[in-house]
């Protein structure tokens, strides 16, 4: 099939467009598109690029606030940090590529999200990776875990951006569809931001970075192949990451921007040159001309179709004023990067491309970008899980229950994962992985930038609304543990097929829950990503709306810590009992994925988080939020496996709910005896209980004189250490 063959409805279908969509194309351009034009429509109208199923609902998220500099719509969101600094951040998924080829899929996921950040003029300062795998005994699963972790590590390590946080969780619903969500946080001067806008007719368009190959064509549309079998065999669907070139691109682009040589810039992500060209034109209300013969190609004989739709990695499209072009090329060449002027900006809002001296396509910008189809997919609101009848929960061996929890992969020490990541390059990591949230110094200042990713997918499966709201609340709590106040959210909404009304219902409910929580905590959503079609043979993953939250500490004076010290007093902030519905105790000890997930008590959560934030900032307390596994697990983690403690639970509580109950928005806090009064005073008006003191080598928890559990902390830690140990061996 030639690149300029006239389009037909069959060809449209092969590219992943519906018959109606093809009709819309004919209407909007008033003629039959050629194959290349059809490919461009298919890419920009794909779910991935157009958000056609999610857009109507995404509007429900709060996106403005006093700190918001740039909300959704650009390559990443931007929030003010004070002192003339802004932070630029976003999270993105690379689920499908990682399932096909875990190492390269994860690596190129890191590369893509980094480009979204530095294309805005920000220097990336940290990465976080939120990972979901299936059961470790499912086919290929250890290989997938290993490959994903190596891929993330090798890419981030090479470019020199520390990976300082994330999550690892396991559930059989991911057996055929793992999740790889990567978040990047960057920083810039408020007056040093750049946008993906091709403005100023007459300006030059420069292609920068790796050459274009035949890789990843159709990555965005994921449609069946338009070419014959043999051609498709030659065309790799998997892209290989080149972190060395990415590092050069980062330095080169930041230098170009610093020198004032850039008018607009955008990376070539999904749908490659197509999305960067059309989106940059759309944002500026302008058009572009491109000479595709000038695009640096890795192989001979590449057609306009291939050049426009290739998803080769490590490429950028840049707009510069013509007198600056020689300067731009000089900087690029000094960094050893290919850079070629390939076109110019025009006033007419259309993209016109030539190839070997003749017109390859001519398409108006608006129908492709702004007027892409939007669907109100049918959906049914999920009924939240009902209460379950539990077996009698008294006289259990609570110590054995705690050990069972800690021995499960869900609670495994993730050190074997993140020790493969450079956590300290940048020399700014105050709190790295293994804590509740990461905290880094903004380079050259004492301003702290904190970040965390959170999502309890089990809870979201039982109640998408409350589960998603709880994910936001957990992120707020995690930030509080390092003294940070939340300033913005990015998300990565991982769901099954939007064409399934049940899945679409989960999506809508989760989105509404997230929206409610973000409004209540006054944390706007400034960027994000939707990943649909996470399912294999009709069975979808657990709804997994991952929350990435960024916080600020105006001045970092103390290093927050998540472990307690000999001699400290222990306090429980928040309710003395939690709920067992949707808890890890039910899932892992009783084998029940059931029960209601309570709504978030925003007022109480906000108060408790403010108290903890203040104490941690002043260096008065070590804090850990109560989340997965409840108080008992938090205590085991705070011991660090070295120093024990004796805790007495408040009279009258039910042991299971006190030890393992979740969803109570509380914290376990350790303070030196001389700071106890300050703590109690700070808690004015919120529930607080003194539980005991740190000391010895055992974790002992009693209730009304009855010892519920009494375990050596070193053994508890040992259980956690075993879960992922295999990942650190050769």
């Amino acid at each position, binding site marked *: 099939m030639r690149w300029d063959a006239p389009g037909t409805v069959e060809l449209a279908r092969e590219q992943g467009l519906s018959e109606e969509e093809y009709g819309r194309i004919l209407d909007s351009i008033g003629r039959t598109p050629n194959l290349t034009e059809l490919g461009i429509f298919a890419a920009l109208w794909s779910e991935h690029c157009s958000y056609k199923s999610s857009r109507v609902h995404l509007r429900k998220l709060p996106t403005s606030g006093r700190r918001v500099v740039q909300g959704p719509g650009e390559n990443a969101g931007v929030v003010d940090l004070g002192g003339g600094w802004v932070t630029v951040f976003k999270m993105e998924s690379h689920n499908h590529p990682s399932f096909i080829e875990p190492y390269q899929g994860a690596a190129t996921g890191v590369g893509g999200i980094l480009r979204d950040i530095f294309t805005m003029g920000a220097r990336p300062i940290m990465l976080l990776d939120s990972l979901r795998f299936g059961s470790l005994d499912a086919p290929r699963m250890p290989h997938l875990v290993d490959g994903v972790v190596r891929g993330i590590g090798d890419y981030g390590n090479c470019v020199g951006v520390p990976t300082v946080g994330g999550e690892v969780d396991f559930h059989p619903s991911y057996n055929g569809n793992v999740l790889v969500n990567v978040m990047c946080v960057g920083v810039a001067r408020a007056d040093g931001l750049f946008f993906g806008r091709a403005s100023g007719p007459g300006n030059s368009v420069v292609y920068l970075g790796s050459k274009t190959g035949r*890789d990843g064509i159709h990555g965005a549309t994921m449609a069946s192949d338009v070419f014959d079998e043999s051609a498709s065999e030659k065309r*790799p669907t*998997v892209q290989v990451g*080149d972190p060395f070139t990415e590092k050069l691109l980062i330095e080169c682009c930041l230098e170009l921007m610093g020198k004032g040589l850039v008018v607009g810039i955008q990376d070539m992500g999904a749908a490659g040159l197509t999305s960067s060209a059309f989106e940059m034109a759309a944002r500026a209300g302008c058009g572009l001309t491109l000479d595709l013969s000038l695009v640096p190609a890795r192989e001979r004989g590449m057609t306009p179709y291939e050049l426009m739709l290739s998803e080769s990695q490590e490429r950028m499209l840049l707009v510069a004023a013509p007198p600056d072009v020689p300067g731009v090329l000089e900087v690029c060449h000094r960094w050893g990067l290919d850079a070629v002027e390939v076109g110019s900006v025009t006033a007419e809002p259309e993209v016109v491309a030539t190839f070997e001296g003749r017109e390859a396509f001519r398409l108006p910008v608006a129908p492709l970008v702004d007027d892409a189809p939007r669907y109100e997919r049918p959906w049914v609101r999920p009924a939240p899980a009902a209460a379950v009848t539990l077996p009698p929960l008294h006289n259990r061996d609570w110590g054995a229950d705690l050990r069972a929890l800690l021995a499960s992969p869900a609670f495994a020490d993730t050190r074997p994962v993140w020790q493969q990541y450079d956590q300290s390059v940048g020399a700014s990591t105050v709190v790295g992985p293994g804590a509740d949230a990461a905290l880094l110094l903004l380079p050259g200042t004492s301003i702290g930038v904190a970040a965390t990713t959170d999502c309890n997918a089990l809870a979201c499966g039982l109640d998408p609304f409350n589960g998603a709201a709880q994910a936001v609340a957990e992120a707020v709590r995690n930030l509080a543990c390092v003294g940070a106040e939340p300033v913005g959210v990015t998300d990565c909404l991982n769901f099954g097929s939007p064409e399934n009304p049940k899945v679409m219902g989960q999506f809508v409910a989760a989105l509404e829950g997230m929206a409610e929580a973000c409004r209540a905590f006054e944390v706007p959503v400034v960027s994000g990503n939707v990943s649909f079609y996470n399912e294999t043979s009709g069975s979808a993953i657990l709804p997994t709306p991952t929350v990435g939250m960024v916080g600020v500490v105006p001045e970092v004076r103390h290093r927050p810590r998540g472990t307690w010290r000999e001699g400290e007093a222990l306090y429980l902030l928040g309710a003395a009992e939690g709920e067992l519905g949707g808890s890890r105790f039910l899932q892992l000890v009783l084998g029940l994925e059931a029960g209601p997930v309570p709504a978030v008590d925003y007022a109480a959560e906000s108060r408790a988080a403010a108290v903890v934030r203040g104490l941690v900032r002043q260096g008065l307390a070590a804090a850990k939020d109560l989340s997965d596994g409840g108080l008992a697990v938090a205590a085991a983690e705070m011991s660090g496996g070295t120093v024990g403690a004796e805790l007495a639970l408040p009279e009258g509580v039910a042991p299971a709910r006190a030890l393992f109950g979740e969803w109570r928005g509380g914290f376990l806090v350790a303070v030196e005896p001389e700071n106890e009064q300050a703590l109690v005073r700070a808690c004015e008006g919120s529930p607080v209980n003194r539980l005991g003191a740190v000391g010895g080598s055992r974790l002992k928890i009693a209730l009304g004189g009855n010892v519920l559990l009494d375990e050596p902390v070193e053994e508890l830690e040992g259980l956690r250490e075993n879960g992922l140990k295999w990942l650190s061996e050769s």
Partner: protein
Amino acid sequence: MQVEVRVKLKQQVLDPQGEAIRRVLAGLGYSEVEQVRVGKLMLLEVAGGDREAVRARVEEACREVLANTVIEEFEVRLQ
């Protein structure tokens, strides 16, 4: 039996390593080196006398673990 397994990236897959090496060689004056592709060489000592059986087993091992057939191709050579 000595068996040589050669694993190479498929022709159209990007080889960043090879390209970086080519650039350095060019910088050192070896500009006659026009392309570099990097692969893996595995030298196996395999017990067993039947050449075709050994070949079949090693090829199976290649498909199973030694090569990543999504992006790589392999070749087995018996000495």
